[in-house]
């Protein structure tokens, strides 16, 4: 008995706590202070940066974090290199322009080394290294020849030593009388030369193509300079301090009649150009969205005072979104900010719902609320037909609703809070719909957080917390800061006559199925008697289901990363020329892992052997044999020991030399130190494994290359564009799965919250929205891509808001006003009660209002935001914007079909 009492007591306490909290600003302050303080502390401890690298837009590959780290290490240098390609029909002109560019950047600190110099290797050093370790480097053919017939091999080498133009240095002969190093060098140089169309000539990387001479100057940017851009300098060339100077010198030279043309290529340039565009777009989209939305609200509310809370909500939402990013991410991607601008249109929805409800409540119940009405408003109210009786009762302040007052009194709430009665009433009227709408949209964003795509996670977190902030502001702050002066009787939301359908409803409502004159309603009649009126949404849903079933086979998930990014014409041409000149039209790469360097080298060698004839391979073991090959090479070299003295004697070497050679062959051991020349391919240890990189050029059969990588094991073959597209497709499938799961959860929640009848109505509308999206996809080619699906998730979240608000209406807990009593028709209109509620019209009973004006405003503001996104120059943003734009449009139309209305027999 005592336990039961305790339980009831605890429930009472909890209930009392929530009741108090609902009428307090504490949640608002607590949420924002904690969030902003945490963000400031995190930022001060570890400053965050903006990541403008558009390669980060693409999901990183790799089967695990180690592979991803290895991929990042390998791509790091490549992604940081800028190439100047100088084209001229006269090689001397090309050379002089190349020298000019090199001199311009000399000593600027923009590049790590002098342009082009980083690729020049010391041939002497290389020769010396090979000569010193030649007994480790013999290839398989030479090994076989020596092991099968060492006598013949010796004779061949002598013949070679005496032949014309044999590049055998006399000094080398002392260390290497069999001239094995020349065999090795020939093989290595052949491999190196065959890998590119370009060659070094007098310090420049040169090539010929289509009858023109090309010089390629490449340079790796120093750390920190990758993305630095600044506005274009007017006039001549400035100091080469930023990437802008790279564009600038190309522009200046191309503007002169130098007889040469400069093309640019390299990831940093694409990133810099894109980020520069992105920043401009973020500013433009944000600015335009805010201005248009504020204009819309001013048009709708006809009141300047109301714009302040809108702006406050907007500001706090964006700040909350940014704060949560600062807390959880070291780098905030620029694309997050571009996508994030859509938050402007979505977070404002709750403010719209609140203030529409508020001005209708305040206007509707002037006579009862005790809200102070400014003289101006009073005058307008007179003009708009507010009864004198009602006007006379507006002298007091707002008070809390009776229910809330009771709860507040019970829980000890200060009596002073009773003055916000009207605004709390306005909030309570939409609270359920607000909760459902917020939770559904929030859940949709949270679903995206589970994707493995960091940019998407950032966007989701940014928008989810922006929405949360907006929701908290609307629920906990707005009722406390709303005042009667925010109400304008001229607002089209209130209609010509208070209590009438609002102005927007007048415009759209009559055409879209208002008041039983449904344009879409299907009425089943029997002998002149109405049997039932089915909501047109069921019919729409049925038609869409049939169409979906017909076209389902045509829908497929497909991503083509190549089509997503279109560089500027200049950079695109630069990349084409670079690929043609260097012969890199078709380059892919692979990552090789091993428990240690030795194992990684063995695997890489096996992979190279298996891909012979499939592709040209550039890897460490092409130049540095793996341990197993080195052991075989040493064994072959030892087969030459009996011939060392004879060889040395013929070559006029003294006995000391032959003794040294013999000793060297006998003591030769396997080595695994990778030369600095091959360091770009040596990715080092990542986690528990060692990683090497392999470049494949001119892959004739990518399937065979993939099979080779799988056969070897520990090899991850990456075909950049194809691979990324495939990864995006996998990601799309995962998100579709999350989408389906979310859809299922929402159906259950709707049915549980609103009951079977209304719940099914909402489910039918939501299903129609989803099906319409799929059919839109069919109309546009039948391919569902990653950005379409992410957009649809948002459509589901936002569309559900409209459906819930429209289907559930705005509950008016307060008794109808005298005006309602005197005008039952307007009461019905104003309350929009259910059928059972309509009976009360003319009586003092609680009723419901249409949510049309607020939903309409939300819809227009959201469409403005996403409509502007659909004009973005970035294709992913454009697809996303268009998807949400069209999806929201259909969701709004469906919401109209499920709209509460008085049914007339």
């Amino acid at each position, binding site marked *: 008995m005592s336990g039961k009492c305790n339980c009831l007591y605890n429930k009472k306490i909890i209930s009392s706590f929530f009741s108090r909290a609902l009428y307090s600003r504490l949640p608002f302050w607590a949420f924002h202070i904690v969030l902003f303080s945490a963000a400031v502390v995190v930022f001060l401890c570890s400053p965050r940066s903006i990541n403008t690298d558009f390669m980060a837009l693409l999901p990183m590959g790799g089967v695990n974090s180690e592979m991803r780290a290895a991929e990042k290490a390998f791509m790091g240098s490549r992604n940081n290199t800028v190439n100047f390609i100088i084209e001229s029909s006269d090689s001397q002109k090309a050379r002089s322009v190349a020298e000019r560019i090199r001199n311009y950047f000399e000593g600027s600190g923009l590049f790590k080394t002098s342009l082009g110099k980083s690729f020049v290797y010391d041939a002497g050093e290389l020769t010396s290294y090979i000569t010193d370790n030649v007994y480790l480097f013999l290839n398989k053919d030479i090994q076989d020849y020596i092991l099968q017939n060492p006598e013949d091999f010796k004779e061949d080498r002598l013949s070679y030593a005496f032949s014309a133009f044999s590049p055998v240095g006399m*000094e080398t002969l002392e260390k290497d009388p069999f001239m094995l190093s020349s065999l090795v060098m020939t093989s290595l140089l052949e491999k190196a030369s065959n890998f590119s169309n370009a060659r070094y000539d007098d310090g420049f990387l040169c090539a010929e193509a289509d009858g023109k001479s090309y010089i390629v100057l490449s340079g790796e940017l120093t750390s920190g300079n990758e993305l630095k851009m600044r506005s274009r300098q007017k006039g001549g060339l400035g100091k080469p301090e930023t990437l802008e100077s790279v564009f600038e010198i190309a522009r200046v030279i191309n503007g002169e009649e130098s007889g040469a043309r400069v093309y640019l290529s390299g990831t940093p340039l694409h990133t810099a150009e894109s980020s520069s565009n992105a920043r401009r777009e973020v500013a433009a989209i944000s600015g335009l969205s805010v201005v248009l939305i504020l204009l819309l609200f001013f048009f709708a509310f006809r009141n300047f005072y109301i714009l302040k809370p809108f702006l406050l909500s907007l500001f706090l939402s964006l700040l909350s979104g940014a704060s949560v990013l600062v807390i959880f991410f070291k780098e905030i991607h620029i694309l997050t900010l571009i996508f994030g601008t859509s938050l402007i249109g979505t977070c404002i929805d709750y403010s719209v719902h609140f203030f529409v409800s508020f001005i209708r409540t305040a206007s509707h119940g002037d006579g009862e609320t005790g809200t102070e009405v400014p003289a101006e408003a009073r005058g307008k109210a007179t003009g708009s037909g507010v009864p004198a009786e009602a006007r006379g009762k507006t002298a007091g302040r707002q008070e809390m609703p009776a229910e809330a007052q009771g709860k507040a009194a019970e829980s000890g709430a200060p009596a002073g809070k009773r003055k916000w009665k009207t605004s709390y009433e306005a909030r309570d009227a939409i609270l359920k719909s607000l909760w459902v709408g917020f939770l559904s949209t929030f859940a949709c964003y949270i679903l995206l957080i589970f994707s493995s795509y960091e940019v998407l996670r950032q966007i989701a977190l940014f928008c989810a917390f922006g929405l949360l902030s907006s929701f908290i502001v609307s629920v906990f702050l707005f009722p406390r800061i709303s005042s009667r002066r925010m109400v304008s009787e001229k607002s089209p939301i209130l209609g010509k006559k208070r209590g009438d359908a609002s102005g927007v409803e007048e415009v759209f409502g009559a055409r879209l199925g208002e008041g039983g004159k449904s344009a879409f309603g299907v009425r089943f009649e029997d002998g002149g008697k109405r049997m039932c009126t089915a909501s047109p949404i069921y019919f729409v849903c049925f038609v869409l289901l049939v169409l979906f079933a017909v076209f389902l086979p045509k829908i497929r998930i497909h991503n083509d990363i190549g089509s997503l990014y279109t560089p500027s014409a200049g950079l695109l041409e630069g990349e084409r020329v670079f690929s043609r000149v260097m012969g890199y039209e078709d380059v892919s790469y692979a990552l090789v892992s091993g428990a240690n360097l030795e194992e990684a080298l063995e695997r890489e060698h096996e992979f190279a052997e298996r891909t012979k004839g499939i592709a040209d391979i550039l890897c460490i073991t092409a130049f540095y044999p793996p341990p197993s090959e080195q052991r075989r090479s040493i064994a072959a070299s030892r087969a030459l020991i009996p011939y060392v003295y004879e060889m040395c004697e013929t070559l006029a070497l003294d006995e000391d030399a032959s003794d040294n050679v013999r000793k060297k062959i006998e003591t030769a051991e396997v080595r695994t130190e990778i030369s600095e020349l091959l360091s770009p391919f040596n990715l080092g240890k990542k986690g528990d494994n060692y990683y090497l990189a392999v470049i494949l050029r001119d892959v004739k059969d990518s399937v065979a290359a993939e099979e080779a990588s799988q056969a070897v094991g520990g090899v991850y073959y990456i075909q950049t564009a194809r691979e990324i597209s495939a990864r995006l497709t996998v990601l799309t499938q995962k998100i579709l799965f999350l989408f389906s799961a979310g859809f299922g959860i929402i159906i259950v929640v709707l049915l549980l919250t609103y009951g079977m009848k209304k719940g099914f109505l909402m489910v039918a509308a939501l299903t129609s929205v989803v099906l319409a999206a799929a059919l839109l996809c069919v109309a546009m080619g039948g391919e569902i891509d990653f950005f379409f699906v992410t957009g649809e998730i948002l459509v589901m979240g936002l569309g559900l808001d409209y459906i819930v608000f429209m289907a559930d209406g705005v509950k008016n807990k307060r008794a109808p006003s005298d005006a309602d009593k005197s005008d039952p028709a307007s009461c019905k209109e104003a309350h929009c009660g259910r059928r059972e509620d309509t009976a009360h019209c003319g009586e003092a009973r609680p009723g419901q209002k249409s949510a049309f004006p607020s939903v309409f405003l939300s819809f227009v503001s959201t469409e403005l935001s996403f409509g502007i996104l659909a004009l973005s120059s970035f294709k992913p943003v454009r697809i996303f914007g268009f998807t949400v734009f069209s999806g929201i449009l259909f969701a709004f139309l469906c919401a109209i079909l499920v709209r509460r209305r008085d049914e007339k027999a």
Partner: protein
Amino acid sequence: MKKAMVMLVFLCVSFVLFASLSVAEKDFLVTHGMRNTSFYGDFVQTKGLKNSERVLRSYGVVEVNPDKGIVWSTEKPYKSVVVITSRYIAQKIRNNEPVRTDMSGNYIYTLISSSIRSVFFADFGLMEECFTAELSRFGERDNKGSDFSGDRSEELKNPKEMKKAEELKNSEDPYASGQGRMGSLLNGGSSDSHTGSEDGWTLSLIPKDDVLSQFVERIYVSGKTDIESVRLVESSGDYILYEFKNLNEGEVISSDVWKM
């Protein structure tokens, strides 16, 4: 100040003038052995160390054909054939199958081939692409003689090498004892081209290409009325000397060799 400027301009102009061959110099070279016609003759290849007596010497026949290329057929002490054309370099060692390396896309071989062809075909355009050229001319009084009297620059003098050549001359080698084409070559002075009172010349070629210059520091081409020697000096100081004798216009190499 003006004087200094004039001197500076003069120095610059001089540098430009010396950096490439003048028309007159090219004409001189064409009339003194560097001609663009087919010829053949004997050659001796000597590989030596900068600071050592040790040399490797081999003998053979060379044929230069501007339309086809150059064939180096080494006959002693080991047989080998090297064919250099504008499209490929082929090498046949003893009785093995020839190894052909196509030039297309192979920069190193293209570079070597171009360098050699520019010298032997008197292709001055190609030569100036590959090298910085400088011509030195001197009179008979400077001709102190090397093996074959054709090489007169200071760098080419090598007493140890000459001693070795003497030893070879006195050996039982039929070529060294003066029999056959090589014999006459080693005996020196028997060729008309080396006995006249013509002025001698040496063309100094410095590779422009970084990669080539890491292997070859300088090439000296010397002659009188014919090319008499080509000396490749490596960056280490080691050298390879090609000396020519009995040069005649025409062709002697079998067409099968060209197809190698």
